[in-house]
């Protein structure tokens, strides 16, 4: 009888509860995305650029596929949202314990002359909204590098990770830097399983070749890749953090896609 009463009590409490557990559920649906610029505008992207007319132009040369591509230019002094950047973002595509493919093509302009780091894509962490967090705590906290990023540095491409949300000096390179020629298109595909524990992994291809190191059986690099269960969001373009660029630099992008398989996103 006591067990029945206790069960009844718990049932009543559950019925009275109007909200869900404030914890992100695993394996939620994410938003598939096609950003090939063929519609001639930037609809669907969230823009983090000082001036859309200057930083994000739709051009018909060079293009990877179709008729149009994005000309992304970062000029000295282009500072917005606490950093020197000209980025385009796609939301809700890197959720907790989801498996997602990302693809895009990039083309380093032949006139690109900066030799400092430049993040051409990144998966940036989010505040843990369900725990009451937001972007601008008071006092302001210092941001840390994103959990996963693709960095262009002096003619080479590096995959960088960060596993410490409180430290700017905890980044590490996955695999070896890869030579990137200016003036040619390069196709990138990332396959990521987003997790806050060691079950998280990613593998990446450049121009169809795996660029993540072998672990003996696959080329998946296992490491936690989200700081909290809000997950990440995807950005591409140019990001220099707090360091101003010395020159105007242009990178072209095309065939930006998010999906569930390699073939769905490969340029």
């Amino acid at each position: 009888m006591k067990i029945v009463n206790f069960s009844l009590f718990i049932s009543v409490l559950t019925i009275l509860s109007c909200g869900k557990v404030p914890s992100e559920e695993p394996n939620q649906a994410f938003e598939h995305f096609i950003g090939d610029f063929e519609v001639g505008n930037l609809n669907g992207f969230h823009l983090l650029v000082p001036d859309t007319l200057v930083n994000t132009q739709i051009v018909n040369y060079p293009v990877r596929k179709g008729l149009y591509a994005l000309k992304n230019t970062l000029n000295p002094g282009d500072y917005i949202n606490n950093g020197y950047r000209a980025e385009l973002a796609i939301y809700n595509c890197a959720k907790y314990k989801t498996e997602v493919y990302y693809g895009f093509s990039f083309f380093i302009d032949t006139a690109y002359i900066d030799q400092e780091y430049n993040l051409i894509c990144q998966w940036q962490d989010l505040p843990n909204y369900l725990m009451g967090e937001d972007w601008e705590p008071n006092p302001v906290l210092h941001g840390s590098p994103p959990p996963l990023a693709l960095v262009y540095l002096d003619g080479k491409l590096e995959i960088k990770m960060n596993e410490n949300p409180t430290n700017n000096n905890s980044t590490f390179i996955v695999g070896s830097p890869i030579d990137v020629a200016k003036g040619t298109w390069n196709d990138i595909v990332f396959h990521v399983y987003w997790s806050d524990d060691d079950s998280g992994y990613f593998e990446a291809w450049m121009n169809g070749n795996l660029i993540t190191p072998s672990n003996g059986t696959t080329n998946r690099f296992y490491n936690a890749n989200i700081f909290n269960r809000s997950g990440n969001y995807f950005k591409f373009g140019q990001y220099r953090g707090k360091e101003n660029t010395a020159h105007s630099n242009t990178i072209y992008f095309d065939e930006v896609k998010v999906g569930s398989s390699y073939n769905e996103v490969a340029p």
Partner: protein
Amino acid sequence: MKTLLLIASIVLSYFSFCQEKNSLTDHSISADFGSYRNKYLFPITNITYQSPVFSKFNLKFSGRLRSYGTLYFLSNSAYDITPILSYYTQSEKPTSLYFSGGIGLDTRIRLVNDERSFAVSSAEPLFALGIHSKVKKFHFQLPIWMRFYSNGNSLSILPEISFQVADRFTIYVRDELTRLSIPQLNSTELRHDIYVGTSFFF
């Protein structure tokens, strides 16, 4: 600033000569700040009012207002309001061991306006149990809170140690460890926050 310090000193001096107060027979207002959660820094502020035990029924009311994202209480992102009515086995003087049990409501108010946020405001019933102990100037508490949601539950343990620095003032440290569970999805999450604060009895 000097004037504020002078006023604070006078108030502290006045209350220092009063008879020692305690959490069972007096009202209290507490303020604490959390700065470290899970693995990173994040500011949180709590202000808590606790009534004295209503000795006829051994009942006591407490209400906690929590603001997220700030050490200055006024938040643009989120608040929690948590009123609890508790029964205490002790009503007059804290002893080396006494207990409490109560029910309450945990109300979450989420104000973030961001497409990436799926945080919503809601309220859930809360069931609280507590073990308390007063030894000399130290007061130990171990409350356990259970919250019930439409798709799961959470269990929090909130050990707290406070030290009576003056008749009307205590300082304390509280740890909050919460395990959120969604049984249907076999999903659990651990959260950890640490707070330091002070209580004023009146």
